[in-house]
């Protein structure tokens, strides 16, 4: 029977729809999380005829309700209302917490997993199956499904043109991004959700497709425990929470297969709270997150960094670890973000800086960070322990230096160091002495992570990894992980396509196992 997709919106059960105090559901598969991993597995399994239930802790917010006001959307669509940080409080961890997850609020940037990263996973982490050749069909499928294409010239805003100019003047390799967007309207509001439904997020693609094949989607539903019996997953317990009123119902889903796709912070927490899957002691460990900085520069002419596509071009000159291990992305931003990313001094210096904001342009730095972080559940509270590794700090400094060099090559008259202490660079000659003076200590650099990864890494050895190469727990049969927690290391690039591909890979592995067993 052919499936039919709703033209707009999504059939979702929310807390407001629930009248009973207790619900018991049965399914073939229950999926925790509705973002990149959850939505792809939901569709790929539902279209094969499996009965799928998707549970999302966050709210269902239809696109028409996106306000394009960043702070409103932070509070509505993001984890902890946009206030999730590491234990030191100097790294903001931005993750979507809504139906569609982080795919609703990301910048649309799409990279296949770099080949040198896959080689590292093959050679150093015992995953020879994860070759470019093996994953290519998955990349190709998702790229086609999500309208992923290279930015055309009209999609490259002034801030990204400046990045390209600077790179070309220095002879550095610079490219247009690929993005999952259909007829970009150039609003610049990607991080607040795409109101006119051009971003091909899970909210307008894989979730409605999964629903068309019968998947049932619940929002406002926090999974509290994964259930298992005799080493086999049996389902999950959850609470349906009204955002205003609190708990409205208990929910139990009985299913032979459980997929955790709640993201690299929530997935390990759920395993820890459930007391499952952690014979290796690795659940929550090996956390990486691409700690990013936003290196702002002032240009003599207006840039209007909020106008146009949020992300246009990037510099890959230093992507290879032997050349530095970082990339530089040309990115836009609005008034609120500008106020949080830099402060040349308290009071008047800050207000004059803000008054001048149309003259600023920024570069987002991403590094291939070491997996030194840990996610844990302590005293009924999540804890994210992550500090910049000593081995990574020189890379952070190099990425600031390269950004500054590029900004001056593009015509900037001043560059701001992304530090809490007000630091400015006024010429190329000042770059090295200023940046070399930075010290690796908490609350020194202004850091943001958009890419939590690697807290339930896959691998062949149950003693050193949490799941196998097909995402199934070494300890609990039928329990899978299908989000960025899987990654053995950070990917250096924006990870959404890697998550899509691996989620599809996990779904295929599950289907193959089921077919063998049948």
């Amino acid at each position, binding site marked *: 029977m052919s*499936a039919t*997709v709703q033209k*707009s*919106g*999504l059939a979702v059960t929310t807390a407001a729809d629930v009248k009973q105090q207790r619900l018991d559901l049965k399914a073939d598969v229950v999926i925790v999380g509705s973002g990149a991993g959850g939505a792809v597995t939901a569709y790929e399994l539902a279209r094969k005829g499996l009965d799928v239930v998707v549970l999302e802790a966050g709210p269902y917010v239809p696109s028409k309700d996106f*306000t394009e*006001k960043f*702070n409103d959307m932070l*509070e509505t669509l993001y984890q*902890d209302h946009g*206030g999730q940080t590491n*234990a*030191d*409080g*100097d790294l903001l961890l931005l993750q979507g917490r809504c139906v569609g997850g982080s795919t609703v609020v990301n910048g649309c940037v799409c990279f296949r997993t770099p080949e040198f990263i896959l080689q590292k996973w093959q050679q150093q982490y015992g995953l020879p199956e994860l070759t470019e050749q093996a994953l290519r069909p998955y990349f*190709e*499928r998702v790229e*086609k*499904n999500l*309208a992923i294409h290279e930015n055309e010239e009209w999609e490259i805003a002034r801030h990204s043109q400046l990045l390209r100019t600077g790179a070309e003047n220095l002879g550095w390799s610079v490219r247009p991004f690929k993005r999952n967007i*259909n*007829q970009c*309207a150039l*609003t610049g*509001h990607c991080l607040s959700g795409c*109101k*006119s*439904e*051009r971003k091909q997020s899970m909210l*307008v693609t894989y979730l*409605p*497709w999964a629903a068309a094949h019968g998947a049932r989607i619940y929002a406002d539903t926090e999974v509290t425990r994964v259930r298992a019996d005799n080493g086999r997953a049996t389902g999950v317990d959850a609470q349906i929470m009204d955002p205003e009123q609190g708990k409205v119902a208990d929910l139990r889903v009985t299913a032979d297969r459980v997929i955790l796709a709640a993201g690299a912070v929530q997935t390990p927490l759920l395993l820890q709270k459930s007391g499952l899957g952690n014979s290796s002691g690795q659940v929550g460990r090996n956390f990486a997150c691409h700690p990013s900085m936003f290196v702002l520069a002032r240009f003599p002419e207006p840039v209007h960094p*909020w106008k146009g596509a949020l992300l246009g071009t990037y510099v890959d000159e230093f992507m290879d670890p032997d050349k530095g291990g970082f990339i530089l992305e040309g990115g836009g931003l609005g*008034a*609120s973000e*500008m*106020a*949080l990313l830099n402060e040349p*001094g*308290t*009071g*008047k210096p*800050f*207000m*004059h800086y*803000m*008054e001048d*904001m*149309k003259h600023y342009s920024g570069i987002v730095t991403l590094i291939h960070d070491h997996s030194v972080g840990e996610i844990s559940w302590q005293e009924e*509270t999540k*804890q994210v322990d992550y500090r910049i590794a000593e081995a990574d700090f020189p890379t952070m400094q190099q990425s600031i230096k390269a950004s500054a060099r590029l900004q001056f090559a593009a015509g900037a008259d001043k560059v701001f160091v992304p530090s*809490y*202490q007000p630091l400015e660079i006024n010429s190329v000659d000042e770059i090295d002495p200023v940046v070399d003076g930075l010290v690796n*200590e*908490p*609350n*020194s650099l202004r850091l943001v992570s958009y890419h939590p990864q690697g807290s339930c890494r896959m691998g062949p050895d149950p003693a050193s990894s949490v799941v196998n190469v097909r995402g199934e727990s070494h300890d609990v049969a039928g329990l899978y992980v299908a989000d960025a927690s899987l990654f053995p290391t950070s990917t250096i690039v924006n990870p959404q396509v890697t998550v899509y591909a691996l989620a*599809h890979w996990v779904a*295929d592995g599950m*289907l193959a196992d089921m077919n063998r067993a049948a």
Partner: protein
Amino acid sequence: MSESDKAAEEVARLGRRPFLKSLLWGGAAVAAVAGGSFAWLRRSGVDDEPVPDWVRHLHANEYHLMRRLIPALLPVAGTNLTPPEQVPVLRNIDHMMGLLNTTVRKDLAKGLVLMDNAAVVSGWHGKRLVDLEPEAARAYFDTWTRGNRIQRALQGVVKQFIYTSYWREPATWPPVDYDGPVTEEWGLEYLGNAPLPEADQEQSA
């Protein structure tokens, strides 16, 4: 190394704590170092002033502290920027406080008390932060910006509340040419859901 830096280092060795707990451990140590030199919770003239009925989440001392800090941290004299009194900065701060989880909220309350009182000795202001004139308050913040990691973090939290509560308001955008929401203004068409992929009925990848 200053006494407060030494104290902060000592506290840092006590182990990793969640963000605001770290602040408070450090803050307690700073206070302990200075403990013989100032009267904890020195009274201020604002302590007895009323708090508006609409305040739901700010404690009275926090309300007065934020109220006093807003003009200090958002000075618009000599600029074209919107005066903060024309923007509901305090209401927005109150709203944002209500979004914090219970643990963080309690710790932040203690942190704000600490920052307010530490001004009595830090920088030898001899007054609580809530009683400082704008210029002195700014100098206090600048000192903490260059201070130990605990001071840097706490001053940053206070600024984030105030800056965000001001710049999130559309009334602040015209002077800086920021467009804000555009989809409805531009009359953009909603594209809806993507159709099923061509490969919907095919085998997996």
